[in-house]
Every structure is written in C-alpha cells, then in structure tokens.
C-alpha cells in the first residue's frame, strides 16, 4: 500500500527529524497568516506545507496556528512568554529564506544545542549495562572482548559446571 497524500514524504520520520529549527524555550505560540492564492504568498504556502511539520516535530510544546486569507500580505507572528510579540514579514520570500530567518532570530544556536546534548549525555554512563530502556547493552555478553553469550556460542568445556563437577568427582 503506497503512502497517502500529496507529498507523503512529509510524514516520514526521517524527513521530520531533518528539521533544524529548535525554538528557544521562551517561544510559546507561532501564528502564520497567509493566503491560498497569489504569487507573493507562494513562499509562505510552501513554508506551511513543507516546513511546519518539521518545526512542530522538533518543538512539540509550541502551539502553531494557521490563518488563511485574512490579511492581504503574509506574515509570521511569534508570542514569547514575556508577552513580547515578534512580527516577521514573509511577503515575497521563498520558504528556505523564511526558515533561515526564523532560525536566526528565534532558534537555539548550535552551541546551545551542543551544550544541552552534553548535559544529557552526562546523565547516563555508556559503560553500564542493564534494561534496554536505560542502557546501551543488556548483558555482559554483548560487550566487546567479553565472553560471548552461551546461548549463541557454547562455553568451552572447562568453564561449564557440569564438566567441572564431573572432573572433581572423577578425581
């Protein structure tokens, strides 16, 4: 069964995770006013169609609202938690330009993202092993250089209990 919709690639996880706009924590609401017809709104329309799913995927706690055919020219408006409203005029811009613009003014910078990534990594140690939910490896047998899982590769005779006890009994 093929995928549904006009550009079903927009629904794939790979496409969504390629979105690179992660808003600062102060951005709460994003509003897009655009028109469904007209050459000047073309960039905004493409932005809504292609880029907003990526943005919402990366920012699940930001509310995004779309308003169609309410104003003559398209624009974006961001509402921050301090009450400030940021207006971005997107008339006559391509969707790539729009994404660059909002990434610059309201997106988390690369340094911030890296810092957060490091903080997250600090919480868990990659060397521990346990349940798959919290660790990389579940059993000692998965670690390189350790004895392989006896379920896959049988242990040598000398390490097995039955052999050892047999030897002991023999002796």
């Amino acid at each position, binding site marked *: 069964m093929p995928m549904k919709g006009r550009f079903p690639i927009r629904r794939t996880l790979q496409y969504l995770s390629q979105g690179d706009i992660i808003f600062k924590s102060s951005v709460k609401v994003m509003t897009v006013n655009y028109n469904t017809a007209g050459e000047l709104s073309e960039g905004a329309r493409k932005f809504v169609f292609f880029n907003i799913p990526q943005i919402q995927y990366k920012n699940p706690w930001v509310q995004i609202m779309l308003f169609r055919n309410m104003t003559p*020219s398209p624009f974006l408006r961001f509402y921050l938690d301090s009450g*400030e409203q940021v207006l971005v*005029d997107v*008339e*006559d811009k391509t969707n790539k330009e729009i994404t660059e*613009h909002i990434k*610059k003014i*309201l997106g988390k910078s690369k340094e911030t993202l890296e810092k957060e990534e490091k903080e997250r990594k600090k919480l868990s140690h990659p060397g521990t092993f346990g349940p798959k939910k919290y660790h990389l490896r579940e059993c000692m047998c998965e670690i390189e250089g350790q004895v392989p899982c006896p379920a896959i590769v049988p242990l040598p005779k000398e390490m097995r209990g039955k052999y050892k006890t047999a030897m002991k009994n023999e002796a």
Partner: protein
Amino acid sequence: PAPSPAPSSALAAPLRPGPAPRPGFPQCPRPRPHYISHNAQHPSHAAIGRCRGASLPPRGAGGCAMLRALRRCCPRAAAGPGPGFGPGPGLWLVPSRGRKSREDPPAKSKASRLKLPPPVDPLELFVVTERYRQHRLVLSALRSEFRAEVKRKKQEALAGGEDAAEHVEEHRLLMAWNDAENARQRARREERLRKEEEERKRQKLEAEESKARLMEAFVKEKEKEVLQLQEEAKTFITPENLDARIEECLDNPRNYNFAIDKEGRIVKRTVLP
C-alpha cells in the same frame, strides 16, 4: 504498677521510672528522640497498627522492635496481663488469620497465651542504636544536600543560566535585526507597489491613446468615403440632366465588342453600324 489507659499513650508517653528494675536486666539508658523517622510502618507490628485512629508516635517508628523492647527493659506493668485479663498496656492479642476470619474469637487454649518480645541485650542495643543514629544522620545530611543541589539547579535554570544578561542582549540584537529586515521588506514592498501603480497608469494611458488613434483612423476613413461619394455624385444621373445625358449617350455610341485570341491579345476591329 498502674496500667496505662490506652496503648497509644503507652507508646507515646515518656518512660516512667518503674518501682524497681527487674533483676537480671541492667538499667537501660533512656532512649532519646534523636530523629523523626517517616518510614512506613512494618505491617507485622500489630501494636502500632492498632493505633489506627490515634496519631502515630513520632519516635519509635524506626527501630520499633528494639525501642519497644528497650522500653520494656524498664519495669512497668510489663509482667504482662494476667491470664484472662485481656489486652495489657501496649499489647493486644492479635487474632491470626488462616482458617478463621477476623470476627472469630481466639481459641480458649490461647486465653492464657502471653506473647513476649524477643529478649534484648541492652549493651548491643545501645551500640546498635548509636550506629543507627550516626548512619541516619549521615543519610539525612546527604539527602538534604542533594535536595539543596536540585533546588539550586532548578533556580539556576529558571534564572536563565549564568549568562542571562548576555542572552537578553543577544535577543535584543536579534529583534533589532528582525526589525531592520522587516523595514527592508517594507521598503521593497512599497517599491513594488509604486512600480505596479506606475505600470497601471502607463497601461491606462496607452489604452486611451490607442483608442484615440483608432477613433481617428475611423473618422478619417469615413471622411474619405464621404469625399469619394461627393466626387461620384458629380457624375450621377439626376432627373435634371437626364435628357442631356441620354442625348449624350446616343450621340456617342460606345463599342464594347472585342476579340481575344489564345495569347491574350485583344482586338477591337468591329465597327458599329
């Protein structure tokens, strides 16, 4: 030995110096309330469980068995309830489950049963309580330390990190840049609108011009036709010059006869009679 009125008060009440220390039991040091343990009660300690309605005593919840035992060290009416006396201070005969349900009374053979707690070595108890005290002291210190750290981290995060001022400054700059960008966009838009306006005007003018031209051409055409007609009107045959024209025609007979050969040469040789 005066029996206490209720089991809870017996536990909560401070140790009463009994009449005389029982032989074989050295005088135990009074346990001091050094901590308030918020641990859950061990379900098997029925004596505690019996104080359901009453508020649980602040102490004695942690090392219940040992502290209770210690309290029992000091002589009280802890000789236990007499046979058939019913539940004594701090003790309540627990009906055990299994075959019987909770409303069934205990068996007659158990009427004189006196359950005594396990004997306590006071020296060991002292040592152990001391160790527990230190252990709990350390643990609670650690816990409060961690709590303070977490709280500090949260507050720090709320304040926006150590470079909060820097962030604000950065934000201001970005907003200024955004405003500049918007201004540029506005300029571009106005330019575009102006151009469109001009274009429209030009178009309108051109349309008018072409229309005027068309009108002119039309008028000229009509004029030409009129003139031509006027010219032709000179050669019209009117009732006035009818006779004259007839005379003229009769006087000048015109010969329309001609011959043509295959090469296309026209020959006009016929003669009118």
